[in-house]
């Protein structure tokens, strides 16, 4: 395969391409979902192809195909060149790329137990067993448990001499109990909503979650929510659990620091960003406790890899330091606007998609207080747990997030349970109201397998390290 890719690169050079790369991707996917003790999804998919990105006449072209023959590669290379020349019809300035050392390397996710070697029967037994526990009470109308595994093999070759092979393995699982009674619907999930938790690694990731241990609690909490009072509205001190903190980081820090959004190239779908270039190094994004880093090198993080899809090595860098907004996620093209080199965040969700700036592991660094001490110091606060709904404006300022459950904190403990909690705010005001972040004991990297962006739509697998944190004077509920 690599010979064919290199021959195509030589062809692009012979055609006068300023820059070109070709990326071969083969992804194997296994998805299992069990609903009410019936296996309703058990699917295996193999998907492979290549994509050619080319820069000529100062403009981009990209073409791709699933047919991986030498002849098809030449045909697709010609199509990419033709498309780039069409793009140049509206060119305002030539595309420039920041320098990048062409790497020759191989990267592989560390895997202890290959998830594709584990027998299906074993996976089904676990998911069915969880279903059985969740469904023990007739009020649980839907018991759903699932697992997903991905193996992605990539070869990246460029006209600059990059030659990179990667094999990434990703695993994830989770479950949800939905309780229904008298027109009321409530759900609880473990370890997170949106199909659970995900990471790079093998079946050992699934085993570490101790899925079965939490099923009874999840069932009982879903049932308890049916008769819980509605979460009272008004300005409150809130504590977000670690998984909801991850969602908060994702929507209100991760997306707005994507430099392509800032420069306007995502306007046609997801929107822009309030973190405009004039705010870099000047905006107090959050309180002094808030430190947010992008780190594609975290072992086990779902946003971890060796090299991005422009061949730039995975990196760790600051986005917010002591509350100040100090960095963007960049590509080779966008980094030139800042006079910088790319920090390696360009990823595509397959061979048939052009790489875009995507979050890696965007982590809220842990603070110093223990969770027990935080709860003891938060009498009257509301603890908000596990994401249920999410919405934010197209500049990433006004957000409204809902969670599955909320508890009032009294005497350092969770007391009254509330249903249908939502909270809302404006991003910088919200982060500036942060006055405590829990320590590493309750810090975890949460995998988000479904981050959407781009046209055609691309789904990225990203992650966020977070621990529970406290925010003051946040609007809980909506006045309707």
């Amino acid at each position, binding site marked *: 395969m690599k010979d064919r890719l290199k021959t195509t690169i030589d062809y692009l050079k012979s055609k006068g391409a300023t820059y070109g790369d070709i990326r071969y991707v083969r992804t194997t996917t296994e998805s299992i979902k069990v609903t009410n003790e019936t296996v309703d999804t058990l699917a295996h998919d193999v998907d492979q192809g290549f994509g050619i990105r080319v820069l000529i006449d100062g403009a981009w072209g990209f073409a*791709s195909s699933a047919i991986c023959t030498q002849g098809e590669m030449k045909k697709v290379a010609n199509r990419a060149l033709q498309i780039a020349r069409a793009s140049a019809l509206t060119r305002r300035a030539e595309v420039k790329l920041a320098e990048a050392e062409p790497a020759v390397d191989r990267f592989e996710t560390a895997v202890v137990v290959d998830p594709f070697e584990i027998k299906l029967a074993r996976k089904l037994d676990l998911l069915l067993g969880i279903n059985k526990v969740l469904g023990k009470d007739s009020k649980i109308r839907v018991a759903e448990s699932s697992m997903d595994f991905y193996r992605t093999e990539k070869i990246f070759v460029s006209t600059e001499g990059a030659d990179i092979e990667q094999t990434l393995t990703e695993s994830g699982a989770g479950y949800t109990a939905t309780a229904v009674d008298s027109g009321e619907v409530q759900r609880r999930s473990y370890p997170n909503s949106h199909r659970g938790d995900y990471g790079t690694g093998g079946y050992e990731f699934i085993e570490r979650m101790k899925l079965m241990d939490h099923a009874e609690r999840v069932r009982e909490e879903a049932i308890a929510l049916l008769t819980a009072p509605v979460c009272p509205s008004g300005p409150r001190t809130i504590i977000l659990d670690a998984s909801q903190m991850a969602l908060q980081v994702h929507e209100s820090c991760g997306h707005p620091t994507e430099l392509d959004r800032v420069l306007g190239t995502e306007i046609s779908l997801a929107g822009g960003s309030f973190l405009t270039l004039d705010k870099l190094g000047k905006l107090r994004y959050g309180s002094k406790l808030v430190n947010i880093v992008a780190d594609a090198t975290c072992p086990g993080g779902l946003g971890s890899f060796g090299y991005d899809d422009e061949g730039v090595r995975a990196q760790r860098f600051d986005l917010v330091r002591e509350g100040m907004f100090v960095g963007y996620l960049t590509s080779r093209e966008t980094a030139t606007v800042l006079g910088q080199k790319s920090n390696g965040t360009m990823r595509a969700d397959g061979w048939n998609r052009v790489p875009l700036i995507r979050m890696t592991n965007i982590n809220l660094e842990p603070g110093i207080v223990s969770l027990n001490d935080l709860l003891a110091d938060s009498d009257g606060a509301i603890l908000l747990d596990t994401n249920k*709904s999410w919405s934010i*404006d*197209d500049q990433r300022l006004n957000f*409204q997030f809902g969670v599955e459950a909320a508890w009032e904190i009294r005497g350092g403990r969770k007391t009254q349970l509330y249903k249908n909690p939502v909270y809302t705010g404006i991003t910088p005001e919200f982060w500036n109201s942060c006055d405590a972040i829990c320590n590493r004991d309750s810090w975890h990297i949460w995998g988000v397998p479904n981050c959407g962006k781009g046209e055609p739509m691309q789904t990225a697998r990203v992650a966020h390290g977070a621990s529970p944190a406290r925010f003051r004077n946040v609007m809980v509920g909506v006045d309707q």
Partner: protein
Amino acid sequence: MIGADRINSILQTVLDLNLGDQAEASFIGSESGLTRFANSTIHQNVAETQSKVYFRVVIGRKIGVASTNSFTAGDLKRAYRSAAKIAKVQKENPHFVSLPKPANYSKIDTFFDGTAKFTPRQRAMKVKSIIDRASKKNCTVAGSLSNGSGELAVVNTLGVSAYQRISAVSVNVIAMAANSSGYAEGLSRNVEDLNFRAIAATALDKAARCASPAEMPPGEYEVILEPAAVAALIEWVNYIGFGSKPFQENTSFMSGRIGEKITGESVTIYDDGTDSSAIAFPFDFEGVPKRKVELITNGVARGVVYDSMTAARDGRQSTGNALTPDATGEGGLALNVFVQGGKSSLPEMIGNVENGLLVTRFHYINGFIDTPHAVLTGMTRDGLMRIKNGRLKGGVKNLRFTDSILRAFESVKALSAERQLINAWWDSLGCIVAPAMHLGSLRFTGQTDF
């Protein structure tokens, strides 16, 4: 294009290996291109040739699914054998009765050569014309223009043999002025039907009208929703309520309420894959013919859409709304949703509002807050305007709404006769057809800074 005969014969050859009691192969192939622009320049321009073949093998009531994007005989047989191997270790699915039997399909013209062959250069020229028009108005533009063609085929061992070729083109334009923006879009199977000039002009006109937007406090407002705004609400309402899965799980606002009045009397919503005035498609991914399915008629809940498995659970026939075999667990989903129009027009509706808002579109709606009451939240975007004494009175800074859509649809005062095709996430297989809608009340619960 591979063609019906060749696809059918290749898939049939694989199914002839006969590894299960029943088996099905479905093929989806496409050639597509997309040009994306922002800051009045093309920044992304892509092409893709892709295909996917799903095999579903049934042994007793055990079902295995495997898929591949390679159309070589060896890879197809490998995927088919994988599906059979999975079926063997599967658990019995008590809801499975049978794969669908052969049927007749509506003859609908869903392919236009001019759309399929629309070149990257032609796309770039259309984009350039939009950019040039915007420059004259001191605006920049962002958006995308995509076109493509495809083939879908379903064959099974009971004799189903369905094939259809399609084309589609869609464009969206956001005009950006100093402190305002405006939006317009177009969608068709035939590129000749799209009036790019008018779409650009609408987006530019909105951006101009919304200059220096004023602040209005959150609260309950009378609103005119343009078709894109109506469609965004319907997309979520469809997802949480009109499919068989949420209906059977009792999480839908339709569950247990069939025959009850759930919205205002002027609201009629139905699914119809056979209506060639929209993005029609004659069969689903199991090869079951599509037909008109009443969802809400004159405000009364009438029914939901099914695939064959969920239909059997309710003792019904599939309505032709199955998704791809890897998503069987999701039940049926309506992909060709129509909101019935009324007798009014957009200018007439605006003229009837004393003090209210016009919403061009919504952004980032979420409907998981309280599904039995269809509570949605979302932001306005690219053209929120004030209406005062029957006239548009400039732009308004964007607002967040949070409301039960059943409650809001209880207050429908008028619907436009004219309806628009609005693109949905399921792309070239369907769309939402929506009129403009005049609501007596929509609750806005928050505001933002632009």
